[in-house]
């Protein structure tokens, strides 16, 4: 399936068009701009206002960490009464989630709702948040628009320190699952692909804002190609975020909601070697998350969420404990290669069995 939205838009050469778009805006610059001091350093920085706007509306989030999967992320304040949008990662699975507001104050957050399809969660903190993003109902960016990502990648900032800013343009709006089986994509909705480098630890949940300070989207998960180790930078478009918040998002049935029930990846291990034998994959259930992620027979499971898998018994234990709807990262050895897969376990519906 191809994207429908991009066809009617500007033609190719997205980057050039981005520049042109800026120019066109400039042509209509109102009179007050003339008042700005031409010599002033202030005017050099076209992104400063949007950045300052976003800095007041983004938070640092700290939660559980599993193995080498980091326990920190970014979040976007979306209401004046403490609602915060963020990604859905392992950092939400611990006993407590801490949110650090732009002023450096620390608050405990609870998860209100999640969307496994968008890999998004809505948190709430019990404090007023007068500075917040209004999530636009419709898309506010087009292919080629400048955007800045305001995130806490690599946890560079702490406390009241300002978040990191990466600049880029919107490359495309598309569905990611078109490449199912080639990429590890736990995300099912339409995504904004950007050329700002956001696919970094801790950036998930950060704000993608337009040059005029509107929320264009929320920075997504790290997506890495198994074959090239390159990463894709994407954001969840704001209109989908709006739908999620309004409760209008239709979750695909294949993905289970986080319910705490039994989960299934679709991996069957090779059991004939005994319980202490290495955890080789014997069979992959067709249509299961594992199949979609590209697991194959004879893959050796090395780690699950960063924890080393010693043998079949351990592997089984660990797989059984995985919570539904939350991304899991698995490293496997296939011949001479070590491959990484990120996938979301499906919930086993009781009426199906």
């Amino acid at each position, binding site marked *: 399936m191809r994207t429908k939205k991009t066809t009617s838009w500007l033609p190719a050469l997205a980057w050039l068009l981005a520049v042109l778009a800026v120019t066109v*805006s400039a042509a209509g610059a109102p009179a007050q701009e003339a008042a700005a001091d031409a010599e002033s350093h202030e005017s050099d920085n076209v992104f400063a206002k949007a950045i300052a706007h976003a800095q007041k509306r983004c938070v640092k989030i700290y939660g559980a960490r599993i193995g080498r999967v980091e326990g920190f992320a970014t979040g976007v304040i979306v209401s004046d009464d403490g609602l915060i949008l963020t990604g859905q990662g392992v950092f939400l699975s611990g006993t407590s989630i801490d949110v650090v507001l732009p002023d450096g104050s620390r608050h405990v957050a609870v998860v209100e709702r999640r969307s496994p399809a968008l890999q998004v969660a809505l948190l709430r903190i019990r404090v007023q948040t007068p500075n917040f993003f209004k999530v*636009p109902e419709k*898309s506010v960016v087009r292919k080629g628009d400048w955007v800045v990502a305001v995130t806490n990648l690599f946890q560079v900032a702490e406390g009241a320190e300002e978040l990191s800013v990466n600049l880029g343009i919107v490359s495309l709006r598309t569905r990611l699952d078109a490449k199912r089986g080639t990429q590890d994509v736990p995300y099912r909705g339409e995504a904004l692909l950007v050329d700002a480098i956001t696919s970094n630890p801790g950036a998930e949940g950060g704000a993608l804002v337009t040059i005029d300070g509107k929320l264009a989207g929320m920075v997504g998960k790290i997506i890495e190609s198994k074959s090239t180790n390159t990463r894709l930078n994407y954001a969840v478009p704001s209109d989908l975020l709006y739908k999620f918040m309004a409760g209008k998002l239709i979750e695909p049935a294949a993905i289970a909601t986080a319910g705490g029930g039994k989960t299934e990846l679709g991996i069957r291990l090779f059991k004939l070697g005994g319980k202490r034998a290495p955890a080789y994959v014997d069979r992959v259930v067709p249509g299961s998350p594992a199949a979609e992620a590209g697991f194959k027979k004879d893959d050796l499971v090395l780690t699950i969420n960063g924890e080393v898998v010693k043998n079949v018994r351990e592997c089984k234990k660990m797989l059984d404990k995985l919570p539904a709807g939350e991304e899991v990262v698995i490293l496997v050895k296939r011949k001479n290669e070590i491959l990484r897969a990120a996938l979301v376990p499906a919930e086993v519906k009781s009426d199906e069995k």
Partner: protein
Amino acid sequence: MRSINTLPPLITLAACCVVCLGFISAAPAAEKTAEPIAETITAEELSKVKAAEAARIATINKVYGSVVAVYGNKRQGGGSGVIFDEEGYALTNFHVVNGAGVEGWGGLADGKLYRWKLVGMDPGGDIAIIKLTGKDKFPYSKLGDSDKVRVGDWVMAMGNPFTLAEDQKPTVTLGVVSGIKRYQPGAGKNMLVYGNCIQVDSSINPGNSGGPLFNLRGEVVGINGRGSFKERGRVNVGVGYAISSNQIKTFIPDLLATKVAQHGTLDAVFSDRSGGVICHQINLDSKIALLGLDIGDRLIAFDGIEIDNANLLTNHISTLPAGWPVQVVFEHNGRRRSVWVRLDALPYGQPKANAKPQPKPQPKPKEGGKPKQAPIKIKLQLKTPGVVRDAKMNKRECGRILKAWAAFAAGGKAAEKIKALRFEEDIIEDGKKIGSQTVVRALDGRFRLERAADKSGSKTVAVWDGKVYWTLDGDAKLKERKPTNVPLEEHVGQGAALGRLLAKNAVDDMAQIELEGSDRTQNRRTYRIRTEDNFGNLLYLWFSLYDDEGNPQVRLLKVSRSTDGLASDRAQTLSDYREVAGLQVPHLRRHVSGLVERTVTRYVVTKCEPLSELPDDVFRRPKNADKKDN
């Protein structure tokens, strides 16, 4: 609409854009989908885009030649650098020369390789200075003011990533500033700490190390040194860090002095406790302890910055060299105290067996999951930090500074036309005029001072005739001063010493002259030189070599007997420089006391005129006066 020419075009377009789109305040509209801006553009708009691009390319062309590809002798691997002085002095990373060695090859955009030699290094701040040779005048770039860098500013990294350039032409990567005042912890013992650094999303890759980060005006605002390379090997992940140009400017005098520069510390550990930044550990031998700081005291301000968390102190102090004078404000037993102190030195490497008690390292900010650097294997000799490694090179540097100063203060064409300057000065203490004096200062260093009659009715004459220093007091007793005698008027004695330094090739004849390194006076970064006056007494000179815009401008800012700031230093600061007959002449001298430089007496020049004739008898001793040696 205002003319497009008043700003660099790209910047103009950019600035207009934000306003035009109505920014945040247009809240109702913000809810809706953005209206299509335009599907086509006019010829005028296209020309603006082209102009913006042309301006950026022009900037790149301007600075392109100053970017160096730094290789060792074997030319394996390599880093980057940038020339900041036409004589071939270039900045790079310490970790680049640590890999390359003390000499090697530097490739410039002209495609040629030039020999370079290591001048000085700062392992703590990951900076080194190398000197290229093989050309009379190298293209260079000036250092900008990194305090003016803001998040979102366009910046260009240049260098030789992956040692791609076979033809030595630098690679340019454009991006924006992602964060400012970042702290990245170091490696080894107090090495490679990036304090108050600039975070960028310009692509920074292996080989970019040591290369410049330019703003769109072509000023170096940082030296790119590292990135957050954690998961994906050492390739660009959109997070690079540059050492700020202002930190580098502070350290350059130390490096040109051929030292292994050391970073400063209070030698006390602070932590965030009970709502304040509290000292919980202190070396009792540290300077700050001797000035009264004790365990449990609350730190209020450091170097003019209000300190509300311990990280802020660590971030700032890591950008300052050992010996740097700073003001520390703290609360001791409920009383607020303000002291000035020169920072102690942080040690590197392994402590020596017979070493004095070593200052404790700075506390690392609690950075949680921040990536730590892998330990660095130090190949260069770092055993004697803080001392001059190459006396010859150091002396040449002194000569360079004095020569440049002489050109401003007594040189050039002006010197051919005029012989001396005549000053009329008011003497002011506590805001009140207490007297006045006239000084004739010849450009060869001779001078005559005449102080008008004071309350007691006596008049003073003091003269240095080039060989002998004599005074004629109110009692009309002529006194010849001997070297052992501290001169009556310190600025007169110092004036004589300065006159000697103005002579051609003065440095060559001097046994005692050394560039000591970085220091601060009158809140400016200065080069401090130690020498002797005509009587063999120690004399320290503070030179500033650049103006606020980073352009070369030599100023002598302070002269003193010692660096401690004691009242007996007889320190005087020089300021309010104005041009007189083509010379730069200070119109305000202040006799100051303490590191804080509290004014004791001000000498305000009310009139300064050049003299084209200088009769010899101006300096001649009166024959009829009683002669009395003492």
